[in-house]
């Protein structure tokens, strides 16, 4: 293992975040906080509680998850797209590093950012809404697993993308709607039966449900299934990434 290389990539990526704190940390934290204020503190008071949880508190895991998914995607996608765009990727390709080391460096940094962002969002939420975390260990588990899986996904997007629009395409057009419809604002059990079945094809449902379970011990789908789906998604992304490096797809001609 070339640990110096992993460290160099990881530190460079973290430094990039440091340079763009406002854009990569402050803005998502603030926009999520606005949701908490409007839907949680203001509207939430007039809503019925769901499964014995205050509405304002109920939406916190889902909202946090929604932000984390899009943020880890764009973060990781930019992390690898920028060197491709600038041409500085040549150095990584010419370096004595394996694909695994490259992925650990880039995806590790993106996932770290996501976890930090997640914790910041949850701390901020506490100022507006009262909530508890029943299973902190599992909460961290889901947070980290999701951060890694979606950073990997973002890494894939960053390698696939051939322009800045394509970078935004998947986070905005696919992941955002899936998160909205994946039970961020409601329990899927509130939907008509037909739509409940349809919703089960939305992978984000499993992420949000599992994450919410770690807060309030209540879930739309069994927590084991949530865990399995998240891990499955992570493995799928790993397979795609390893294919990318074996074939040199979009990296080498």
């Amino acid at each position, binding site marked *: 293992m*070339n640990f110096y290389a992993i460290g160099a990539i990881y530190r*460079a990526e973290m430094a990039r975040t440091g340079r763009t704190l406002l854009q990569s940390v402050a803005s998502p934290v603030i926009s999520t906080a606005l949701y908490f204020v409007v839907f949680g503190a203001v509207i939430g008071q007039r809503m019925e509680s769901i499964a014995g949880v205050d509405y304002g508190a109920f939406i916190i895991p889902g909202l946090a998850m929604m932000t984390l998914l899009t943020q880890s995607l764009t973060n990781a996608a930019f992390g690898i797209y920028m060197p491709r765009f600038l041409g500085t990727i*040549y150095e990584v390709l010419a370096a004595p590093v394996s694909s695994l080391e490259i992925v650990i460096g880039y995806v590790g940094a993106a996932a770290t950012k996501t976890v930090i962002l997640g914790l910041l969002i949850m701390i901020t939420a506490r100022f507006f809404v009262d909530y508890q975390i029943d299973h902190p260990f599992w909460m961290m588990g889901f947070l980290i697993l999701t951060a890694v899986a979606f950073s990997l996904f973002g890494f894939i997007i960053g390698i696939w993308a051939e322009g800045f629009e394509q970078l935004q395409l998947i986070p905005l057009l696919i992941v955002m709607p899936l998160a909205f419809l994946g039970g961020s604002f409601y329990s899927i059990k509130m939907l008509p039966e037909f739509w409940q079945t349809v919703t089960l094809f939305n992978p984000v449902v499993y992420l949000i449900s599992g994450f919410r379970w770690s807060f309030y011990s209540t879930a739309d789908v069994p927590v084991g299934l949530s865990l399995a789906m998240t891990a499955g998604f992570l493995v799928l992304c790993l397979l795609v990434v390893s294919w990318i490096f074996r074939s040199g797809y979009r990296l080498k001609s």
Partner: protein
Amino acid sequence: MNEAASENPAPQGALPGERALVVRNLHKRFASGLEALRDINLDVGYGEIFALLGPNGAGKTTLISIICGLVNPGPGRILANGYDVVRQFRQARASIGLVPQELATDAFVSVWSTVSFSRGLFGKPKNPAYVEKVLRDLSLWDKRDNELRTLSGGMKRRVMIAKALVHEPDILFLDEPTAGVDVELRREMWALVRQLRDQGVTIILTTHYIEEAEDMADRIGVINHGELVLVEETRTLMDKLGRRELRLHLHQPLNAVPAALERFPLTLEGNGHELVYTYDTQQADGDIPELLRRLDEQGIEFRDLHSSQSSLEEIFVNLVKKRT
């Protein structure tokens, strides 16, 4: 075995007789179907300066990119520092430094960070003293805290060289290092190349400035349409292919070369006003006094004479033309 290779010791750990670079039967066909490299065979000895010459699109960058891992290789085999660049890519790449043709740098990172990053990326532990030495050698020390976007193009190129050198490579690839660089920086660049060679670094460079190759390189390879048409020591190449010419401007034009001068390769030009004597550089110059004596005997007078040697430029153009 060429001289340059035997003069300079291989780095520690290299087997005797080992080459810095060995390329065997290398081919490359791009997805577009373009055959960029055809059956390349090349040996470069340790401590050599090897110049790769060729017109635009000849395949110089492709060859370098394959060796360094930027482009997937086609059939063939490459050993760098004795290591297979595919199967033993770690050892091979750790011994290679690359300065690519295109300027590519981050924008908001400082000179110091980007150079330190390269060292880490190539698996070397932190060594601020060494980073400082490299920056000083390249006159970048004063700029160490500047963001890269604030540097001029020439400065950026220095940064890229610093990045390539900071992991202490045995082999350095410079893809057109002097393109877009002013005279002073070019001179500094060549001084640096010589200094590196003296430190035992093997240098493989491409250039379009033929005088540079002539001045700097121990050996020259000419590549055209993906084929390595010739590899030769610079001196031998100049001797073998270089021709000398003695041009005599006559007082009275001649209709034909006089029979008494037949044993000299002479031609008449400029309506018989110029007598041109062409000879190989390998040939002894001793013939010139003899020629002049004979001219005197024949009563042929000249008012001026002019001698010239064909440059590598002409040799190169001839070679490339022949193949096209």
